[in-house]
C-alpha cells in the first residue's frame, strides 16, 4: 500500500491517425508534489491527462497511478479531476452535484467544506447551468476535490477565470496541496507554472523537454542573454563565440544565449558589434523558447 510514487509514465505513446499526440513520455511524480504540465495548446497536455486518468489507453508504454492501472486507482477513489472540455451538467444545483460526486467516493470530505474550499457556499442552491463561466469553473474544482482524493488533476484550471478569481483559486489549490495531497495541473501560462508548482514539466510535440524547478529551467537554458543590433553586420559565426549556446536573429537584432556573458561581450567588442548592447539574466520565457526552439512565444500576459 505504501508507495511513494503517485504517477508514473514509462515510454508512453499515443497517436491519433498520423499525429503523435504523446511521443514517448517518461514522468514520475512523488506523493505530495505539486507539478505543472507546461506547454502550448496542442503540445499534448490534455492527451497526457486523459491517459493518466484512464480515459484513454496508450498505444505503447505504461501508465501507473499509485502503482496500479489508472482505471483501478480511479475506481478506488484515489483521484479527482477537473476536465477542460464540456458544458455544465444541465438541471442540477451546485449542492446536488457536489453531494452526488462526494458520495461516490469512499472517504469524501464534508460537502460544506468542498463548497467552501471552492468558494461556492453562497451559490450552493443555484443551478449549475445558470452560472457564469468562472463560477462553473469553481464548480468543476469542487467536483474534483469533493471525494478528498490523494491526487487531483486539473486541466487548464484557470481558463475563464478573471484575475481575482484566479488568485482565490490558487489559494484553494495550495490549501488542498498542503494537506499532503498530490496536485498535477496543466497550463500554457509560464507565470502560473512558476508561481504555483514545485516542479515544472515542459512538454512540446508530445515529449518532455525539461523537468525541474523554475530556477533549474532558467539555468538549463543558459545563464544570460546578450542582445545587440547587427546594424547590417554579418550574423555568421556568432554561435562560435565563447560561451554562446544558441543564437536567435529577430530582424536586425541578435540575441545570444550564453553561459559566460563576460567572454561573449569581450568577443563581440573584438568584432566591433556592440551597438545597442544589452546583457540580462535569462527569463523563464527565454528559457522556454530556448527549450522548444520555436520562435512563437508563450503567452506571458493576459
Amino acid at each position, binding site marked *: 500500500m505504501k508507495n511513494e510514487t503517485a504517477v508514473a509514465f514509462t515510454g508512453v505513446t499515443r497517436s491519433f491517425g498520423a499525429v503523435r499526440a504523446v511521443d514517448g513520455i517518461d514522468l514520475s511524480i512523488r506523493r505530495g508534489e505539486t507539478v505543472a504540465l507546461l506547454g502550448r495548446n496542442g503540445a499534448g497536455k490534455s492527451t497526457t491527462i486523459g491517459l493518466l486518468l484512464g480515459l484513454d489507453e496508450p498505444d505503447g508504454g505504461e501508465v501507473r497511478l499509485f502503482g496500479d492501472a489508472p482505471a483501478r486507482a480511479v475506481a478506488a477513489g484515489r483521484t479527482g479531476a477537473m476536465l477542460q472540455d464540456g*458544458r455544465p451538467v444541465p*438541471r442540477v444545483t451546485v449542492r446536488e452535484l457536489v453531494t452526488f460526486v462526494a458520495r*461516490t467516493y469512499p472517504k469524501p470530505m464534508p460537502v460544506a467544506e468542498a463548497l467552501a474550499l471552492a468558494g461556492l457556499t453562497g451559490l450552493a442552491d443555484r443551478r449549475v447551468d445558470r452560472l457564469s463561466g468562472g463560477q462553473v469553473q469553481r464548480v468543476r474544482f469542487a467536483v474534483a476535490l469533493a471525494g478528498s482524493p490523494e491526487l487531483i488533476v486539473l486541466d487548464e484550471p484557470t481558463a475563464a477565470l478573471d484575475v481575482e478569481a484566479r488568485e482565490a483559486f490558487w489559494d484553494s489549490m495550495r490549501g488542498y496541496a498542503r494537506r499532503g495531497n498530490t496536485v498535477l495541473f496543466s497550463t500554457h501560462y509560464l507565470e502560473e507554472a512558476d508561481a504555483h508548482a514545485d516542479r515544472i514539466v515542459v512538454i512540446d510535440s508530445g515529449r518532455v523537454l525539461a523537468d525541474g524547478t523554475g530556477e533549474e529551467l532558467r539555468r538549463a537554458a543558459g545563464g544570460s542573454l546578450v542582445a545587440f543590433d547587427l546594424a547590417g553586420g554579418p550574423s555568421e559565426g556568432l554561435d562560435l563565440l565563447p560561451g554562446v549556446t544558441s543564437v536567435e536573429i529577430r530582424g536586425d537584432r541578435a540575441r545570444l544565449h550564453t553561459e559566460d556573458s563576460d567572454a561573449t561581450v569581450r568577443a563581440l567588442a573584438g568584432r566591433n558589434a556592440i551597438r545597442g548592447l544589452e546583457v540580462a539574466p535569462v527569463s523563464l520565457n527565454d528559457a522556454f523558447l530556448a527549450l522548444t526552439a520555436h520562435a512563437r512565444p508563450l503567452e506571458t500576459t493576459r
Partner: protein
Amino acid sequence: MITEYVRLEVRRTLRDTGFALGAVAVPVMMYLLFTNLGGQNEEEWKTASMIGMAAYGALGAALSIGTGVAEDKGSGWLRQLRITPMSPRQVVTGRALTGSVVVLPSIVGVLLAGGLVNGVHLAAWEWAVVALALWLGSLPFTLLGIGNGYRFTAQTTGVANIACNLGLAVLGGLWFPVSLFPDWLRSLSAYTPTNRFAELGVSVAGGHAPGAAALAVIAVWAALFGTYAAVSYRRSARTS
C-alpha cells in the same frame, strides 16, 4: 452509489419541461381527445385507449432517456462520471433504472385521466396490476432509447427516437385499434413490442393473465434492445 446516481438523474429528467410535456401532458391530452371526439366513446374503447395511451406515454418517456444520454455524452458529463469511482456498468445500470422511474408519471397520468375523467371502472387490484404490467413492459423501450443515445449525437438521437416512437406506436396499435388495420398489417403488428406491450395491459384490465405469446415477444425484444444498448455503449466508450 447507484441509488444516489438514479436520484440525481431522475431529478434532472423531471426538471426538464420538454419531458413533462412530451411524456405526460401529450399522452393525457391525446387520450382525452381520442375518446371524447366523434362517436367512439363506448366503455371498451375508453379502457383500451387508456392502456394504449399510457403505453404510448411510457414509450416516449423511456425513449427520452436516450436523448438524455446523448446530451450527456456531448456535454462531457459522461466523461466526468468516468473519473468518479462509479464503474461504467453502474452508470449504464443507473441510467436504465432512471428510465424505469421516469416512465411512471406517464402511466399514472393517463390511468388517472381514465379513472377520474372518463369514468373507467376497474377493481383496485386491476388498476395496480395494469400499472405494474405497463411499468415492467416498458423496459425494452428504455434499452432501445439508451442504445440510440450511446450510438448517436444528441440531435440524431432525437430524430431516431421520434422515428422509433411514432413508428412503434402506430404499428403497434397504440393510437388506433388494430381492428382498423388491413389484415397483413394486423399480422405484422402482432410482432411489434408495442402491440404486445399494450396487450399486457389490456388482458389484465379484462381480468385475465397475459398470454404466453405476448410475454415471449416482449422478452425477445428486450433481449434484442439490451444487446443493442450494450454494443452501442461499448462503441461509444472506445471513441469518446
